[in-house]
């Protein structure tokens, strides 16, 4: 059986297809079928010849096998320093091997590559900082995921996730109407507390176009209300697009580059339609990476920039606090030991470390903010990045991966962890569930909303 009913090389691009895949509980049949899936070696080799150029060829060729990347990888460290977890080994023994064999690899090898690509690398790019030759293994694993996706060797949840983007232009089955309705409903809930609170939909020429993570719409609608409240109090002229509101990209985790392009183009189309001055995305790491950092390239934008200036939520929040648009009531600042999770996707991979530190200065009583060690660009992945959190098949490996973050948090002694990233937030929630170290975790919005000084004219009448 070369192509299975569930597991095959064809992307899912209909709602029925998604439902069918979802009906296969935990992907049991999907993974059974995967064992029979044929490898299209010609396609594999042709794709490699067309896409492995100078940079990657050189990386694979000049890797000195020195092992200096070993200690940089948290998965190597938490898995008992297993030499099979050394980044250079992981990529040489998968992508390197596929290339050496000119694509002539078998089903079993491809399934092995799938495990390495999704359960032994979170594409956090930390090792790239520790290689004397400047070899970024995380980038190569991202590329390998693309090859595996094309051949149908992709974890079940990510095949579905990529399909969601193809069908709904969102990571979940949240329609445009669901998004607008939920946002409006949540804002109504808070109208009494914040008179004049609205969610301006499809306003042209606003200063800010706000984009979100579909999870917020489906599972955490409070987050939408908090975003509205913060823009409202800051006096921002903002809007949300009724189409092109989803900033995330599970397609990026899956290696479905065509779906990545479709997804970011929907956001860029909203920018072009509404012509805002800036786009601001929610507290999500990979969403920012996908739509702002990598997205322009998928969409073929040669200058590497989205159609309008696009910033991360922490950049806006830091700016609003620094300029006094938002004022914090000093008596309500955090007065307990608190630590901060640096998201790989916008700290290491877009250098936003100062914005989050600025925010901490405003919201934490001096002396209570404790940095993790290491931190900033050198911080470790939360343990669940790159899609790892969502893959049932690799849950056991993911739970081991959480150990590094657990120990880093324990070392700070803080019981509160601020995590302005959905993926990190999830991983930290899960690590508390698995290891019970007695911590609380939060996004920034709910914390800031509670400590705002609200200008007189925006307060509810007594």
């Amino acid at each position, binding site marked *: 059986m070369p192509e299975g009913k569930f597991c095959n090389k064809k992307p899912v691009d209909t709602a029925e297809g998604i439902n069918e895949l979802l009906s296969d509980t935990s992907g049991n049949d999907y993974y059974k079928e995967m064992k029979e899936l044929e490898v299209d070696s010609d396609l594999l080799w042709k794709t490699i010849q067309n896409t492995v150029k100078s940079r990657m060829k050189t990386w694979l060729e*000049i890797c000195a*096998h020195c092992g200096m990347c070993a200690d940089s990888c948290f998965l190597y460290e938490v898995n008992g320093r297993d030499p099979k977890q050394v980044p250079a080994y992981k990529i040489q023994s998968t992508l390197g091997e596929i290339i050496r064999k000119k694509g002539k690899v078998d089903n079993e090898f491809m399934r092995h590559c799938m495990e390495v690509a999704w359960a032994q690398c979170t594409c956090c790019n930390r090792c790239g900082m520790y290689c004397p030759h*400047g070899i970024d293994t995380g980038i190569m694993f991202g590329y390998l995921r693309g090859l595996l996706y094309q051949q149908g060797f992709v974890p079940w949840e990510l095949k579905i996730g990529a399909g969601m983007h193809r069908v709904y232009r969102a990571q979940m089955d949240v329609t445009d109407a669901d998004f607008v309705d939920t946002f409006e409903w949540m804002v109504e809930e808070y109208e009494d507390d914040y008179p004049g609170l609205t969610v301006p939909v499809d306003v042209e020429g606003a200063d800010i176009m706000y984009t979100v993570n579909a999870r917020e719409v489906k599972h955490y609608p409070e987050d939408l209300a908090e975003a509205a409240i913060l823009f409202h109090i800051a006096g921002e002229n903002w809007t949300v697009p009724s189409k092109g509101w989803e900033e995330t990209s599970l397609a990026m985790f899956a290696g479905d580059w065509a779906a990545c392009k479709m997804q970011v183009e929907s956001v860029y189309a909203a920018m072009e339609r509404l012509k805002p001055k800036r786009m601001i995305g929610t507290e999500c790491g990979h969403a920012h990476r996908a739509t702002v950092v990598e997205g322009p390239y998928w969409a073929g934008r*040669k200058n590497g920039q989205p159609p309008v200036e696009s910033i991360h939520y922490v950049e806006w929040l830091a700016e609003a606090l620094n300029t006094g648009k938002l004022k914090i009531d000093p008596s309500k600042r955090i007065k307990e030991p608190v630590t901060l999770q640096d998201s790989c996707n916008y700290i290491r991979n877009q250098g936003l470390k100062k914005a989050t530190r600025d925010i901490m200065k405003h919201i934490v009583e001096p002396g209570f903010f404790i940095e993790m060690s290491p931190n900033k*660009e050198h911080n470790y992945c939360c343990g669940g990045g790159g899609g790892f959190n969502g893959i049932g098949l690799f849950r056991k490996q993911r739970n081991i991966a959480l150990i590094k973050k657990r120990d880093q948090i324990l070392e700070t002694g803080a019981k509160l962890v601020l995590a302005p990233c959905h993926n990190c937030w999830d991983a930290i929630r899960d690590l508390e569930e698995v290891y019970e170290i007695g911590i609380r975790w939060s996004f920034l919005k709910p914390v800031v909303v509670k400590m705002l000084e609200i200008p007189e004219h925006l307060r509810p009448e007594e």
Partner: protein
Amino acid sequence: MHDLLTGVFFWITLGVCLIGMLARFIMYFRGLSWQLDRVAYTSYPAAGFKGAVRSIYKWLIPFGTYGWRTQPFIAIAFFGFHLGAVLIPLFLLGHNLFLREKLGISFFTLNADVADIFTWMAVASAFFLVLRRLVLPEVRIMTTRYDYFILLVSIAPFITGLLARYQVGEYSFWLNMHIFCGELLLIAIPFTKLSHVFLFFASRAQLGMDFGIKRGGMKGTKMAW
């Protein structure tokens, strides 16, 4: 034999090495693709240049990066080896005399004692690099015969050079062996992993441009290598 090695062989190997390096260096940069690499190389030359220079410069300084500092043992072995590998071929008195005769040019000359120290340091460091490959599981797992071959090709001119210098046995034999090994090394540079001699700069420049343009450089954040 000596005439052949210092005559036609010398010219061929030097030519192949220099032209090969130049060709591959040019091919590397021509092969960079803004869309495949997802780096807008040509849109922001200044940011790219700054990132590239920083990325190279930081890694050339012993203990200049987190990577070097967190792994002092390999940092010492690495710099011990590479200092010799770069300085001795270019600045040894004997090499300079030879170059003056052949090319009419010569470089700054190292004091003989200093040259001895660098040479021994390179040999000792190579020994530690081999030892490291044998002992550390995280290095052993990746090490292939090819890696040892590259180390052997790199260190052979030093060992034969020392044997000639201390006149162990017949001087002229070791001198010829030394020249032969040196020429083998020159030929190997463009075609093997030794291409890192120049591709190191290319690869580091590329990642530097990536960080300088896309991953924070244009946000005003310098990468903390």
